[in-house]
């Protein structure tokens, strides 16, 4: 795995298309580089939710920010509605960014602590001078209500007077007022309690229908990603392992890494058989990534070719692609769901 390739890219009504994205950062002044993202490609069809999943350090958040051009990628192409973002000038980029918005992990750090919450939500409209003052206020009210926040309370409170879940709703409202096409959610529920997490996931699902949104949902929790996504991409150390329709990925994980991830999820069922976890090891360093398939040091199926040659994403049917020299044999009997 941990491979490259663009075979999985589709035609049609593509909202976001990322091709061979590379993101590298220097490590201090040591001359070393963090290879945060090393040539990944994916696309999102209008109205779809793409889940991006992987362990910490796999480059999923970096990818999310790269789509916003924060910072600009080292190389690669990022197209929003067919518009190449990487070559845009600052002023054009500024207006292109309004079409996509971002929601972050830490709900409290996402809001300016010293500003009234309602002003933060109205901010995008002020920046772009959209509508009259009354129209703006009305729109802000409407959006706040649709995320379940009392506009009156928002008009008199600062972020620290709200709970984490409420702050996350407010961030979502701020992202919505500009009527974006695409929302990139970077671990939006990781900092929340389970019960609140469910509220936010349901809210995102509702808003997606209501506002006709396309979502990119970045998270480390596979169960959450599976629930909200139509298509899931699994990343490992800056590379793409597997990309597939959500249900198909869980029904027949073809990449050994995906398999490990699924097996590691604690299931709330005492009768479930626990897989032996001792052999899995820990992720390598993105500063000195392994050769060939980047997963090979942790893979029980790895052989010489995995150490030397990088696997390319290949079609295994049903829109399911995997980058592995030895993809797992798929059980033929797929339960009908």
């Amino acid at each position, binding site marked *: 795995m941990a491979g490259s390739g663009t075979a999985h890219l589709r035609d049609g009504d593509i909202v976001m298309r990322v091709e061979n994205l590379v993101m590298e950062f220097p490590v201090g002044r040591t001359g070393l580089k963090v290879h945060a993202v090393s040539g990944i490609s994916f696309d999102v069809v209008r109205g779809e939710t793409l889940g991006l999943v992987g362990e910490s350090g796999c480059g999923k958040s970096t990818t999310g920010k790269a789509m916003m051009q924060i910072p600009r990628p080292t190389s690669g192409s990022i197209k929003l509605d067919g518009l190449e973002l990487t070559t845009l000038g600052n002023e054009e980029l500024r207006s292109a960014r309004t079409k996509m918005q971002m929601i972050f992990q830490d709900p409290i750090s996402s809001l300016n602590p010293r500003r009234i919450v309602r002003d933060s939500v109205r901010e995008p409209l002020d920046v772009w001078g959209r509508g009259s003052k009354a129209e703006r206020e009305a729109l802000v009210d409407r959006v706040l209500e649709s995320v379940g926040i009392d506009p009156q309370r928002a008009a008199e409170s600062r972020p620290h007077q709200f709970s984490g879940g409420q702050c996350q709703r407010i961030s979502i409202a701020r992202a919505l007022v500009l009527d974006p096409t695409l929302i990139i959610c970077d671990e939006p529920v990781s900092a929340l309690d389970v019960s609140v997490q469910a*509220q936010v996931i349901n809210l995102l699902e509702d808003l997606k229908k209501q506002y006709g949104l396309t979502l990119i949902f970045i998270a480390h929790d596979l169960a959450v990603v599976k629930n909200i996504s*139509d298509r899931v991409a699994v990343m490992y150390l800056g590379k793409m392992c597997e990309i597939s329709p959500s249900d198909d990925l869980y029904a027949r994980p073809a990449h050994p890494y995906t398999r490990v*991830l*699924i097996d590691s999820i*604690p299931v709330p069922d005492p009768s479930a058989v626990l897989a032996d976890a001792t052999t899995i090891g*820990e992720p390598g360093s993105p500063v000195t990534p392994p050769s060939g398939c980047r997963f090979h040091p942790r893979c029980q199926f790895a052989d010489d070719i995995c150490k030397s040659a990088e696997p390319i994403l290949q079609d295994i049917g049903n829109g399911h692609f995997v980058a592995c020299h030895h993809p797992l044999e798929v059980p033929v009997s797929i339960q009908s769901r």
Partner: protein
Amino acid sequence: MSELQTEMRQEHQPLLEVTDLRTHFRTERGLVRAVDGVSLTLERGKCLGIVGESGSGKTVLSRSLMGLLPSSNTVTSGSVKFEGKEILGLPSKQMRRLWGREMSMVFQNPMTSLNPLMKIGQQIAEPLNLHLDMSRADARATAERLLRDVRIPEATRRLDQYPHELSGGMRQRAMIAIALACGPTLLFADEPTTALDVTVQAQILQLIGEQRRDRNMSVVLVTHDLGVVAGHTDEIAVMYGGKLVEKAPTSVLFAHMKMPYTMSLMRSIPKLEDPSHTRLATIPGRPPDLVHPPKGCRFAPRCAYARDKCITEEPPLRQAEDPNHSYACWYPVGSPEFNQREAELNSGAVPVTLEAR
């Protein structure tokens, strides 16, 4: 006779016996009732899971049991008996003899819980020097063996490394090695895997389980994740708003949940086997304010099955069909009232007041 008898007694005496424990904090806003009347027992060699969301008091509970809370603004009452001896309110001078030796703790964040300026070897050797009076060389050898026990590769080299030179999973293993150093009978693990990746979490949980069996040690596993407790505990205590709301052996609890809270929590977790876009159940609102907790059942304001009685009267902890299963609810899952409301909810006859209030 006496020797046999004491041995017999010890066999039947639970390792930890907690009765009506209350831990309150004096703050500027008023008294925070972080733990409010918790009773439980823990047998030798067993693993108890304490589950709850943030603000439920689970962390405060585990720290009160161990006596690790700062004394200046904390008010505790009730009783905590360790091996039959009352330890609640003991001065830290006396507790120090238990800490590290009889009971020890593993914390959530391995990066911040290890001293950044001390070598791993020194940190493991410290309790060995203190409690077992080991010489430097012996302590070092023991530390190395402990590192092997927790499956840290190249143990000898690691002794002279600093925490920042280890990976997240290895740091947590090192912390477990420190906690195990003097062979405690009771280990508190406070969200030991929350800061870790899911693959590493599985390894750490497995390690704790193995060590527990090898050493016949009791473990209190504090977590917010029902998935984590399901596979790794013998018994589970569910906390809400500073109270213990349901307690049962693990298999019993998952098979026959009584508290609507436990059930709602369970339902709000996304499950892998469900097809994507399965609507999740949610719990509206947010946890109670522990300075001014609700009068009746603390969960009532968020409970879809609550009735008038729940709001006015606090439910006591009651025994279920299984003698080891207890819960605090007037209309538990399966009761006629519950079933009636469930039917109404499903038919849409009663509007579900969802989302933020």
